[in-house]
């Protein structure tokens, strides 16, 4: 009854502000928008038959060139710059852009739009790897060597050349230095052996693997923020002064600067995509010039390596200001007040009517962006519950999990939580995956309380207490506790779920839990059920092996430990889980065809296991864009951390009309 009331409120709200929700476009990249540009000028000219006009630059930079403070644009650009294809039109130079950042410590999401560039990138379809910093790549025949071709004459934002030395520094002095990196990460150790990295010449780097390793490409293409500065290359000319190999006095200097070791000192100077680091040169379209208490100030990078189809050096906009919003509530307020020129991230579909109402006063337009999450909230049922063994046995019973899933009225959830904009869905692979099977998304999602009750009766939970709640098979009372991390899933979601589960006689209690405490409990196993989005489900993120859920994270702490320690610790899982875990460990190192077959088998096992109970997926998120801002793709992904933030809406293309 309570949720019916809530539903009415939502409907009324929509009616009163006169909103009709737009249908969300298909996210298959249909339409005529350019998916990407060209790796080099030569490729652009060959593909279009046009000649690229002479290079042009922002008037702001021309002034500096005339004053002799900057070399001319031809010298600042690489010999072969990347030619980007503007989304709508060739833009105009100038102006400033206000974006958001989470906190002073978290430069996200603005930092990803401004300073983030990876070796390779993704086209707007989110699946095709394209050149970016590197102008090309080459696998040998059996996939055991991978060659990266860099751009001759490319420069860092301070004018220093960007070349193979910047990758070699990262590899030899960061990754292979055991003071900084105790173990080489497994994604750089295919077959259990660290790959070999060699500098072929100043602009060519070759990686050699013990076994074929095709997933190295998505692993350097911004998928889950990989292949960027701090992840595969570094501003070596700048960082050397903080590295003991190049500066014997660094230990002393670190102490003077207030650090305990030179490793911490170096760590504080490195670029990381998720934070704001002053002083370090970047290769992104903008560079940090100042951090202020309100946020970050960024100016254009005069050495940025991309031009548009008219030969204009990108970006168009001179200055970016990122202001801190701290939490989702404040963010929504600031968006409504028109404080941001563009913001599409960490928003909630429930705020859509509010955003629409503020459109005129805030001088912005609202759009709905598609999502890659197959569940906005999926409830992980702990298979290694550390509490009462009889409770643990119930959680491990597949009939129990099916009953929980059948009891949910996902259409109603969709109306209440997502204004009807989502899709009732199981927590599984994203439907855009090339190997996707429809049954994965629809398994056990029908609303069937009778079947749910029948399953629970079969389990021996047919006896009930005075209030009508089911007793355990041994006759003792049973309570299902949802540990609810309120900023991980939509507000009220868990209360709604509780009502459905109460309705089939499963006494459900919602306990608010701090997110950090929850993460600890995901390790210790002291929880029964917890809700979290089904993220990381897009094809490439799954393929490079970073989907934690397929490693039993969140739903089976002991099995997850067993997996992570390769059997040394934790408990050995049952055969189906074991098969899934072992297959998934090999996935990144498989040839593409084998990989598809393996992932199909993995998601088949996943479907039957039902360890995470999905609710509604592909719930679009509202975004806002200031009127008059050009080249904005409103069909962009917002929760696209899975595929690398910033690879869809290219802020360096934005311009003021």
């Amino acid at each position, binding site marked *: 009854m309570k949720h019916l009331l809530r539903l009415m409120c939502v409907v009324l709200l929509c009616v009163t502000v006169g909103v009709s929700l737009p249908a969300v476009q298909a996210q298959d990249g249909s339409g005529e928008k350019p998916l990407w540009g060209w790796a080099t000028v030569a490729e652009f000219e060959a593909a279009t038959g046009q000649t690229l006009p002479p290079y042009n630059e922002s008037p702001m930079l021309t002034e500096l060139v005339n004053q002799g403070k900057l070399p001319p644009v031809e010298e600042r650009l690489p010999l072969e710059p990347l030619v980007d294809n503007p989304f709508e039109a060739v833009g105009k130079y100038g102006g400033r852009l206000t974006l958001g950042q989470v906190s002073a410590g*978290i430069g996200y999401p603005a930092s990803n739009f401004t300073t983030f560039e990876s070796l390779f990138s993704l086209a707007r379809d989110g699946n095709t790897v394209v050149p970016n910093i590197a102008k090309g790549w080459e696998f040998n025949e059996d996939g055991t060597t991978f060659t990266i071709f860099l751009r001759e004459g490319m420069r860092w934002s301070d004018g220093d050349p960007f070349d193979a030395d910047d990758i070699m520094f990262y590899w030899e002095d960061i990754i292979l230095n055991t003071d900084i990196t105790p173990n080489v*990460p497994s994604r750089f150790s295919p077959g259990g052996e660290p790959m070999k990295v060699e500098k072929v010449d100043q602009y060519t780097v070759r990686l050699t693997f013990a076994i074929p390793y095709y997933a190295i490409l998505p692993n350097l293409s911004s998928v889950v923020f990989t292949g960027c500065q701090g992840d595969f290359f570094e501003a070596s000319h700048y960082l050397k002064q903080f590295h003991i190999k190049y500066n014997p006095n660094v230990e002393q200097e670190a102490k003077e600067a207030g650090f*305990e070791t030179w490793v911490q000192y170096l760590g504080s100077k490195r670029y990381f995509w998720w*934070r704001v680091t002053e002083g370090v040169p970047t290769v992104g379209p903008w560079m940090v010039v100042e951090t202020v208490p309100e946020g970050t100030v960024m100016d254009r990078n005069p050495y940025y390596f991309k031009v548009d189809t008219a030969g204009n050096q990108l970006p168009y906009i001179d200055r970016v200001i990122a202001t801190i919003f701290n939490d989702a509530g404040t963010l929504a307020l600031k968006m409504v007040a028109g404080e941001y020129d563009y913001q599409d991230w960490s928003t909630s579909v429930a705020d859509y009517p509010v955003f629409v109402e503020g459109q005129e006063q805030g001088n912005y337009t609202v759009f709905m962006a598609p999502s890659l999450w197959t569940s906005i909230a999926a409830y992980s049922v702990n298979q290694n519950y550390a509490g009462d063994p009889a409770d643990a046995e119930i959680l491990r019973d597949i009939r129990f999990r099916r009953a929980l899933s059948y009891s949910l009225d996902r259409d109603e959830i969709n109306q209440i939580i997502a204004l009807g904009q989502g899709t009732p869905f199981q927590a599984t692979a994203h439907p855009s995956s090339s190997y996707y099977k429809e049954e994965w998304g629809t398994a056990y999602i029908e609303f069937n309380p009778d079947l749910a009750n029948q399953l629970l009766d079969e389990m021996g939970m047919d006896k009930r207490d005075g209030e009508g709640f089911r007793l355990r098979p041994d006759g003792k009372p049973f309570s299902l506790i949802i540990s609810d*991390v309120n900023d991980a899933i939509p507000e009220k979601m868990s209360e709604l779920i509780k009502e459905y589960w109460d309705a089939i006689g499963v006494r459900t209690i919602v306990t608010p839990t701090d997110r950090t405490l929850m993460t600890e409990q995901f390790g210790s196993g002291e929880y029964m059920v917890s809700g979290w989005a089904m993220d990381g489900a897009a094809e490439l993120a799954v393929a490079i092996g970073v989907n934690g859920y397929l490693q039993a994270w969140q739903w089976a702490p002991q099995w997850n430990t067993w997996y992570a320690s390769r059997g040394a610790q934790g408990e050995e899982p049952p055969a189906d889980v074991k098969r899934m875990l072992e297959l998934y460990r090999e996935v990144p190192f498989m040839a593409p065809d084998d990989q598809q077959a393996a992932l199909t088998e993995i998601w088949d096992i996943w479907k039957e296991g039902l360890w995470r109970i999905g609710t509604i997926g592909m719930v679009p998120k509202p975004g806002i864009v200031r009127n008059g801002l050009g080249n904005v793709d409103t069909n962009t992904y917002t929760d696209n*951390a899975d595929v690398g933030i910033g690879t869809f809406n290219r802020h360096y293309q934005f311009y003021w009309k």
Partner: protein
Amino acid sequence: MGHFIIRRLGYIAILLVLVSIVSFIIIQLPPGDWLSAYVTRLRVQGATINEEIIQGLKRQYGLDQPPVRQYFTWVSNLVQGDFGYSFSYSRPVKDLIIERLPATLGISVLTILVTYLIAIPIGIYSATHQYSVGDYVFTFLGFIGLSVPSFLLALILMFLGYKYFDLSVGGLYSPQYIGEPWDWDKFVDMLWHLPIPVLIIGLSGTTGLIRVLRGTLLDEIHRPYVDTARAKGLRERVLLYRYPVRIAINPLISTVGWLLPAMFSGQVIVSIVLNLPTVGPLLYEALRAQDTYLAGSIVMILSLFTLIGTLISDILLAIVDPRIRIEE
């Protein structure tokens, strides 16, 4: 007096050591450390991060050290005037605090001035015109001011400012001035943003002060010495300011000590609501993020200021009120 001050300084040193231990333990109490809190925060906001990368970072943040060792490093640096560095900002704590000091002190000093300027005259008026219409009006307003939480007031004023004056209220100046050098326009813009925080932060203090002042003054006004002075023909105004008011001011002086830490931190909740770049929100965020050295250092400075402030008000009281000197 000299002995008294030296003894008190000794207590302060001991208390500071205890505060450093307790605050360090409390900051470490929540589960996990800065890095895990950080990663979780990214995770709930939808960023998938490779677990391996995070583990590799522990050493670069010095979080692989046992807490006892972290404590001693921090304290030995503190003694040398080095507050360590902030994990969140990857910058020295000292810089972060100094950066926020002008705004913090500016708002605080203004607020205190406004508080005194409003509260003292009204308090005196209310006491000397007890049960008059003016007294009732001020009393009524005063109780409202005391009972409405200041953050709520901040929210209401922000809404009104936004709705009717088209004022972007949060912050010290409009977003378009962030990162721009100071010029006349930016200064004027800041002046427009100042009244709301100053009024809101000042208001709760003001109303409290009015009540205290009115109460003590009423006690004094009816004392025999006042009647005697009046009988001797002293002018009413001179009489009032020279004797009862001087005594009624005592509660003000004994709370001067609290002003010092309050000036340093600013009003935390109001500053968060109004998005003011002061030290208060810095502390709040540092505690939430388990940014150990930043939070610990601010707590230490606050404690130091509280202790010194109390000492100062004790000394001031002794100077201002001869009775206290004699009792000692």
